[in-house]
């Protein structure tokens, strides 16, 4: 360990004691896209003890421009991102215990996962999941770090239960999506800047240097040369349902969660059945081939060509319908195949 981590041990903020802490800590990362790839690589190289990665998606060609853990080979194999990330991270640092979970980060899953987690990193692409992370963070008193980007614009904020305002204080409701995700595109430097802010915050928390944790809300635009750091002293909302006195953790109620979602930045709808199953993908592939569909697959998922649409079915019953943003249409396509 001495040689491997020597340069960050030399850094006064970490030191030998800090490195020992980092090596014992457990980080939960929700999402393994652009922000997830970068944060995971930083933490793996830094020698975090355990890293649990949850992601519902698989690697596509359009990811390679910015999602640094993935390769053309992963695209060709349609590997789930969590599995592809684990493969690459284990090659980088075999001392880190990486756990890959292929699935949607539902409130129930989050509550199952957080018990021995020290910090949660937000690397998701939607506010529904972020609000669930926020409620779990408050309920179990685990800090988390919000990060997001679109175009050349990005932002980050560290949320410490009992100390800082929470995401629900700032937003009060789930913002409507689509305005930026589908139209803004994304450049890699914006991703990297958010990763730098998030991963520096995680390192501070892992070495328990709480005084160093940023209390302001950072946002920047790398193309337009803007950088702001907002003071958050007035942001805590007394009536907040996630962190106020009368808290109810509204985003942990599974019934409140949508079952179909348009995925950010893509012509794709995710359909999530209300009860998760364990599909026999092999049998399904056989049936669909018989019906004349072109079907490709691996142990994790099936990809079915359906005219202008492509449906990717995961073995927990979840599906991604590519080629549409119409929720109802997507649900209908899903039910045509899976009942």
């Amino acid at each position, binding site marked *: 360990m001495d040689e491997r981590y020597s340069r960050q041990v030399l850094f006064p903020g970490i030191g030998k004691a800090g490195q020992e802490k980092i090596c014992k800590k457990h980080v939960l990362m929700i*999402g393994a*896209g*652009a*922000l*997830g790839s970068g944060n995971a690589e930083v933490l793996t190289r830094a020698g975090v003890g355990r890293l649990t990665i949850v992601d519902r998606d698989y690697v596509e060609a359009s990811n390679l421009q910015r999602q640094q853990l993935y390769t053309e080979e992963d695209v060709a194999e349609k590997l789930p991102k969590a599995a592809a990330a684990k493969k690459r991270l284990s090659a980088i640092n075999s001392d880190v215990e990486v756990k890959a979970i292929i699935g949607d980060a539902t409130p129930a899953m989050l509550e199952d996962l957080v018990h021995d987690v020290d910090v949660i990193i*937000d*690397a*998701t*692409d*939607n*506010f529904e999941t*972020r609000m669930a992370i926020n409620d779990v963070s408050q309920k179990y008193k685990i800090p988390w770090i919000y*990060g*997001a*980007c*679109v*175009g050349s*614009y*990005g*932002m980050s904020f560290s949320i410490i239960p009992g100390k800082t*305002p929470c995401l629900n204080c*700032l*937003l*009060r*409701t789930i*913002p*409507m*999506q689509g*305005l*930026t*995700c589908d*139209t*803004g595109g*994304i450049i890699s430097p914006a991703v990297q800047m*958010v990763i730098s802010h998030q991963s520096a915050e995680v390192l501070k928390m892992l070495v328990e240097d709480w005084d160093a944790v940023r209390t302001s*809300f950072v*946002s920047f*635009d790398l193309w*337009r040369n*803007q950088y*702001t*750091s*907002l*003071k*958050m*002293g*007035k*942001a805590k*909302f007394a009536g907040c349902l996630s962190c106020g006195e009368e808290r109810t953790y509204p985003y942990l109620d599974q019934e409140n969660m949508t079952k179909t979602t348009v995925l*950010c*930045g893509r012509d794709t709808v995710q359909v999530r059945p209300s009860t998760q199953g364990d599909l026999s993908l092999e049998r399904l592939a056989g049936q669909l081939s018989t019906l004349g569909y072109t079907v490709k697959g691996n142990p994790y998922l099936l990809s079915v060509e359906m005219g202008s649409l492509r449906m990717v079915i995961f073995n927990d019953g979840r599906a991604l319908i590519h080629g549409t943003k119409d929720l109802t249409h997507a649900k209908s396509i899903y039910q045509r195949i899976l009942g």
Partner: protein
Amino acid sequence: MNKILFFAHLRDAVGEEYLKLNATGKTVGELKVELAGSYNLPKLDTVMTAVNEEFAQDDEVIQDGDEIAFIPPVSGG
């Protein structure tokens, strides 16, 4: 007078990095409604607002000389 700054897609929608206008005496919430109407902006109710680089709630009253910034939270990642 007040300087009103816009970030991300709001800046594109307004077409300017900032506007100079008199919002003194209005609340942040009132200014949001007024701007959304006159610049054909998307709804601003979930947009975060800073007054002089400090997070402000919708009921905060704007003073003369305050600099207001509208910062839309984004979801990409």
